[in-house]
């Protein structure tokens, strides 16, 4: 396919200097700060909303204003922090199956 694998290396490879200048929009420090602010503001907003509106669910635990927030935060951290240890048991070199 003529147009396949059309990848050119970055114009200024980041390995070239000790302090590479980030070139992408999402790598600018300003953008990153903005993302943090928006994310924390949204979390705070929906946490407050959880206490303001009536959260009638199927189970009593759902009525606690930030149950879903805490559950999401806890489960996500659990999956990442505990799950990565599976590598100790399951990880093998890429050519393990020798195919």
């Amino acid at each position: 396919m003529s147009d396949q694998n059309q990848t050119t290396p970055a114009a200024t490879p980041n390995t070239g200097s000790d302090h590479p200048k980030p070139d992408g929009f999402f790598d600018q420090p300003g953008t990153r700060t903005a993302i943090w602010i928006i994310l924390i503001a949204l979390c705070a907003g929906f946490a407050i909303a959880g206490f303001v509106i009536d959260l009638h669910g199927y189970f009593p635990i759902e009525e606690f204003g930030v149950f879903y927030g805490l559950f999401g935060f806890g489960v996500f951290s659990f999956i990442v922090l505990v799950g990565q240890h599976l590598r100790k048991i399951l990880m093998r070199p890429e050519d393990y199956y020798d195919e």
Partner: protein
Amino acid sequence: MNELIAVLTSPGVIVIIIALLGLGLGGTARAGLYLAGIAAAAVALTRYEMGFVVSLPLFEIAGNSIDLTPLRVDKLSFIFALIFLIAAALNVIYAWRIGDRAQDVAGLSYAGAAVGGALSGDLLTLFIFWELTAITSAVLIFAPGTKQSYAAGMRYMVVQILSGLFLLAGLSMFAASGRGLGFEAMSLTDAEGALDYAVLAVFLAFGVKAAFPFLHNWLQDSYPKTTVTGAVVLSAFTTKLAVYALARGFAGTDILIYIGATMTIFPVFFALIENDLRKVLAYSLNNQVGFMVCAVGVGTELAINGAAAHAFVHILYKALLFMSMGAVLYRTGTTKATELGGLYRTMPATTVFCIIGAMSISAFPLFSGFVAKSLTMSAVGYEGMFFVWLALLFASAGVLEHSGIKIPYFAFFGHDSGKRPKEAPPQMLIAMGIASALCIGIGVFPQYLYSILPYAVKYEPYTAAHVVTQMQLLLFAMLAFALLVKFKLYPAEVRSVNLDFDWFYRVPGRNLLTWANGASRATWNALSGICTQRVQALMARIYAVHGPEGQFARSWPIGFMALWTAVLLAFVLVLSFVA
């Protein structure tokens, strides 16, 4: 005769015939014909009245007439057939640029077989389409022509054919016991509570294709090894045909609730540590099908609606995610997270489409996953199954981790790989664009999806409580991700392969087979050696007695002969006296 015409003009058969006609055409002509054929099949499908069936008497066995129902259109089969046709059309557009004849023909035949399977009203017709999906889809796995894809394709074939054999065994037992071949709701136990082996065989056939735990590895083994377009095609049909079959045959079967809940949870951990992003999507597929299987197990009207709606939207956003990874593979030659990152700079459109797929699968409000998954969650909650509900909620956060964040983050953001690939080709962008539009459209206007669900829907997904709780779950999980990355607690990707259940048949199983092969050969050699020795010894003995040097070959003196003649004469004399 009318029945035969009805079967030949049924959507599944139309698609298969069109697929075969495409064999003789060039790339663009083939794609055009295929889109026209799929449109014709879609028109045929929508013109049926709900409850339409075609029946054919097959033969009589033990006084019972065995009938075939090659076509049955009701609300359950309709929604699955419809989404299979939509997926087929997206696949054709996506694959247009690449235009590989074998893959195009196999891919569309596969879609046709899935449509035919969803519309079959008896187990024998289902079996035929079931096997056809196995064979046509295997072509896609063999397509890259590498040693890995060949080996994975062979394993895939073995598993898929095994599923077909289970189905054949089950339907044979059905026919033999005079129950007919109708594909209706069935129960694993009979009236006295004893296990029904015919039903069990059918259940296992469906379980293999739905990738139940321990039967799931064919999926993660084969899908990541296929071509750019192959994975997109494969992701749509096989497992969702199995979900349809389970919904038709086993709605309300309790064990499915626990099988489904297990399926939602364990792939989350495998997806976390996996380096190949298409394999992450394969684990994610497993997890999503788990939600549907769980809903089928609950079996209420709300739950079956949940399973069908989830299958419908899942096919779209999973195809979208596989398409975006396909575009990355097409342009960079890899989908390994270790070799990717920062691609948003030069592939912005693909990045946006991938994020739309990621937000849909994570069930953000206004995206398709939200309006479908909440049906299942509510069905489980309504039945008061607290721990199952908690497991599904756990898995929902897991989906956000591997499909919502990991896929777009490691491919398009994360550390800069230095790769600057061109944007995906226009045909691929068009296919991704349509899939994205459908994901958002269904999320914003769920009533159109709800109107084609198997049962009437009295459900409002956009309540304040529902939106707030879901946003909390997702946003706080994203906050956890941001903090984990910030404090360098998120595991870096590693070039590696991770063991899963398939290790048991790929290493010890294979060793056992090699050993058994060697052992049987050694046994055979030993046995034949013993036999040969015995026969040789016998021959040597016969030779010693009868051979030229043997006892019987000795030359005897004349006197000896005369003596024996006298003895014989004397014997005859005595005999005549006695007589």
